[in-house]
């Protein structure tokens, strides 16, 4: 790098990104940035680099505890999507985002119905959240493609009873549960299934977890108690 008083040309783009990151630019500067971003992918990379360089300024501030009401208000905002027709913070746009981000939460599905038009679905991916009776959950995300469905099942706060195994089952409408495999309580598992096994769309497909003898059901049918189940909803 140069230590002279003059800006070397190769730094121009970088300096502009730094000025933009700091919020220094006037309308002309902002217009220049808008143009550059379309033409030159390096600008966004330079901008990200400046954010990473400068943000420790914020991280270095001494922490200040907010009052407890802030969290209460956040929880309240997340808890009542059905009350959002008007007047709530950025209501329409906001809840549309929530309904996307919180797919799998029944309440948000209601918001989806309330808020039309819906943005087009980004992909056929789907999520199912299996709330377990003991308070934990398994979160399954599934992505169809290339004739198969790849599913990732992640545990959250799950404790598998000693000497037992949690087993995952796939249930198509009107069909018997089909064993998919065992779920450890402490790490995600990835499963590949032929698309034909899932039938058509993922929505309508149910997942269930049962507690089975160690190593899984010996018979191929559910023998233990079902501790959680959920349908897939589009992501």
């Amino acid at each position, binding site marked *: *790098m140069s230590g002279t008083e003059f800006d070397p040309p190769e730094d121009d783009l970088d300096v502009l990104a730094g000025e933009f990151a*700091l919020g220094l630019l006037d309308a002309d500067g902002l217009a220049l940035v808008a143009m550059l971003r379309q033409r030159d992918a390096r600008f966004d990379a330079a901008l990200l680099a400046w954010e990473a360089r400068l943000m420790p*300024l914020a991280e270095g501030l001494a922490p200040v505890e907010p009052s407890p009401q802030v969290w209460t208000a956040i929880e309240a905002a997340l808890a009542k999507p059905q009350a959002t027709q008007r007047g709530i913070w950025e209501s329409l746009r906001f809840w549309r985002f929530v309904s996307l981000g919180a797919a799998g939460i029944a309440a948000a599905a209601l918001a989806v119905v309330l808020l039309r038009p819906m943005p087009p679905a980004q992909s056929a991916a789907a999520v199912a959240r299996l709330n377990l009776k003991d308070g934990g959950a398994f979160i399954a995300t599934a992505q169809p493609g290339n004739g198969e469905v790849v599913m990732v099942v992640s545990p959250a706060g799950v404790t598998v009873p000693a000497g037992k195994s949690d087993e995952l089952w796939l249930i198509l409408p009107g069909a018997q549960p089909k064993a998919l495999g065992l779920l450890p309580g402490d790490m995600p598992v990835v499963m590949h299934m032929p698309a034909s096994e899932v039938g058509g769309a993922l929505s309508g497909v149910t997942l269930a977890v049962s507690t089975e003898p160690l190593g899984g059901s010996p018979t191929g049918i559910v023998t233990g108690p079902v501790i959680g189940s959920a349908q897939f909803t589009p992501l």
Partner: protein
Amino acid sequence: MTAVQEEARLARAELTACLYRISLGERSALAELYRRTSAKLFAVCIRILSDRAEAEDVLQEVYLTVWNKAAQFDAAREVSPVTWLAAIARNRALDRLRAKGRRFAGLDEAAEVPDMAPRADMALEMGESERRLAACLGALEARAADAIRSAFFGGQTYENLARQAEMPLGSMKSLIRRGLIRLKACLES
């Protein structure tokens, strides 16, 4: 690797996992993230807005934004979760400041806030990247470092900064541009 670095790595991994769980719609993960980061992000909001009630309002928006956009956090991009969160807090707070048309009022209030250069006794609490940035800012001309800090926290344009420092606009621009080039060189050295 020192114990402190190890701890920082662990915290980073845990926050990344938190964001992933939030992107799946897990509210308890948002609660955990809030517990771990709200005091830091609140400090950012207060620093920018100089008003506790308003900062709390923005803090709420910040976590709702995180709830909606956690899926956009990309750990592979080498940006730490804290940096990502701090950027959201800063942007939200600056948006609020601009919406209120309080740029100039903010300036006057900011002048009463003690200098934001980190105090020596805070240095111990700072992470590696904060220490490095503080050192590199310290190596700049004082006027350039001050201008960069007040732009960062105040959302000031060049014009405002020039007026505040009673400098010609062109001089302020070259002061900051030089500062940015040197800052980058210092951070990368």
